[in-house]
């Protein structure tokens, strides 16, 4: 199973949302990281076949997904960043409707709906009307509908927004279990979502792919570039001016600062293992600084 993204671009009038994006995805979980406005959602929409690229092609196993049409959407599961429901439907009915849209037969749909409801922890609330659901429950319902047709290609746009930590862990575990023979691409701002499950991370900035690599390799670049130091309150402004600050933690003994710097910032600074947040800041913090 291979999803090939060949030089796709998307232009809205004068705005180039995605610019010559190229990537190859095989089975496993891929994390798509990027700041707001990087073009992640636009990219995912093109992969979900709900937006047409201005140029370029997306292929699944060598076939253009546009020519595949229904056959591609048959193996696709998609969770948009923002979506709605029919508030007067119950959760179960909503999933049955989506199952019908995905071409599942009635009996098979009923079984599958029950399965996904249990998977996302909505078994007890399945027969309540969706208008009574909390934000997290709604999000879980969205995840459930994406899994209904046992998709081979799963596109998830910020799937854990609104989920509490327990639900996020459950979701991560579901993804890990599923990733063996599926292509899963998820875009998120919550780095812990992909830190433990992602095979590869795709870094996206201003519509372009910055890097695609294993997380371990990307983090290796930051070896001895992440430092931890405890300073006085009065030294903090100077540090902020000179270095990229990842984290500030006030303790009794002083202010513990996590700094991103290729050189040792202070004599008392100690090197620490780089994490995904450090990576994010390393690549995308320039925009904030500007």
């Amino acid at each position: 199973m291979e999803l090939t993204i060949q030089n796709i671009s998307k232009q809205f009038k004068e705005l180039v949302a995605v610019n010559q994006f190229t990537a190859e995805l095989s089975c496993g979980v891929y994390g798509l990281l990027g700041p707001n406005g990087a073009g992640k959602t636009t990219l995912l929409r093109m992969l979900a076949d709900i937006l047409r690229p201005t140029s370029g092609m997306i292929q699944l196993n060598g076939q253009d997904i546009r020519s595949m049409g229904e056959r591609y959407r048959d193996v696709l599961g998609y969770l948009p960043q923002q979506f709605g429901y029919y508030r007067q439907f119950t959760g179960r009915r909503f999933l049955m409707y989506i199952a019908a849209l995905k071409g599942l037969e009635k009996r098979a749909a009923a079984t599958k709906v029950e399965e996904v409801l249990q998977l996302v922890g909505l078994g007890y609330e399945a027969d309540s009307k969706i208008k009574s659901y909390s934000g997290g429950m709604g999000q879980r319902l969205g995840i459930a509908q994406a899994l209904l047709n046992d998709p081979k290609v799963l596109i998830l746009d910020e799937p854990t927004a609104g989920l509490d930590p327990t639900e996020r862990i459950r979701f991560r575990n579901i993804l890990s279990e599923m990733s063996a023979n599926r292509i899963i691409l998820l875009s998120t701002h919550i780095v812990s979502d992909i830190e433990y499950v992602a095979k590869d991370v795709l870094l996206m900035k201003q519509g372009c792919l910055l890097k695609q690599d294993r997380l371990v390799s990307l983090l290796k670049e930051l070896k001895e570039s992440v430092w931890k130091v405890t300073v006085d309150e009065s030294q903090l402004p100077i540090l902020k001016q000179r270095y990229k600050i990842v984290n500030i933690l006030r303790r009794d003994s002083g202010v513990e600062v996590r700094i991103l710097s290729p050189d040792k910032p202070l004599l008392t600074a100690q090197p620490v293992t780089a994490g995904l947040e450090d990576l994010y800041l390393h690549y995308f913090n320039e925009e904030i600084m500007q």
Partner: protein
Amino acid sequence: MSKSRENKGKAVWADDMNDVKESEYFDSELEAILQHYRVELPEEQRINTTIDVLRQYVPDISENPREVTMMRYWRRWINLWKISAADIGMFSKLYWMSCLVLFGVGVWIGVTVQQMPAIVVILFSPLPFVIGLLEVFKGREQGVLEMELACKVSAQELMLSRLLFIVMNSLILNTCLSGLLYLVRGDISFWGLTWTWFTPFIIVASSSLWLAIRIRCTVSSMVTISMWMAVGMILLTRPDMLTRMMHLHILITILINAGAVYLLIRQGWKLLRNHTFIAEGSLSYGANDSEYF
């Protein structure tokens, strides 16, 4: 008293004395520590000066409390109109265009049609109000209500000010239409025409506001407009029904109008005093009763 008991007593007494000395010692220590936190009262002259400066900000409490209440009401009404005036620019293009189109079409048909110009004014009179209701409940519909409730100008005040504006705007538009038709045509009475459109306007306005408070505004507007279209189609093809309705006894019309005005005011009051919104899933939070009135 036996010696042992005496001795015991003495021992106790001695113990007590020691305790007292100890406590006295701690008291003085404590006092020394607390002295550090002592707040000295300011001089009396300083207090008086401060009172004099603050006096200008203290509202005038008249001898007549009723007068005070009336002043407060008046000030608040003026404030409401000020909010309304400031908010005009926030009304959507759809509202202004609808008003313009309805007015234009109303004038065109009213001028070109030979018979029954009143029907045009009757049919069009409630529509600007019904479309304006979308502006009144914009915050609720688009999920901004929660933020508005936390602002200085509260959501209730905002909704009420918009409601006042669309009522006034509708009345002005309809009056202008009647005026124009009266000027262009020689066969109608201005006051007769005004009275003719006022009844359906106030009935539709009050009932649509009643409905909009209870269900989603877009849906309630659709229900109102579709029903009004049905009524319009029926009346157009049954002129006998229309004539009979237009020539109802004046007392009945006054009663109906009064009832509708009362319903409109009451719904406006309800809008002001209590408004619910969905904050989290099925939990429905009621906004605090407004202390506006």
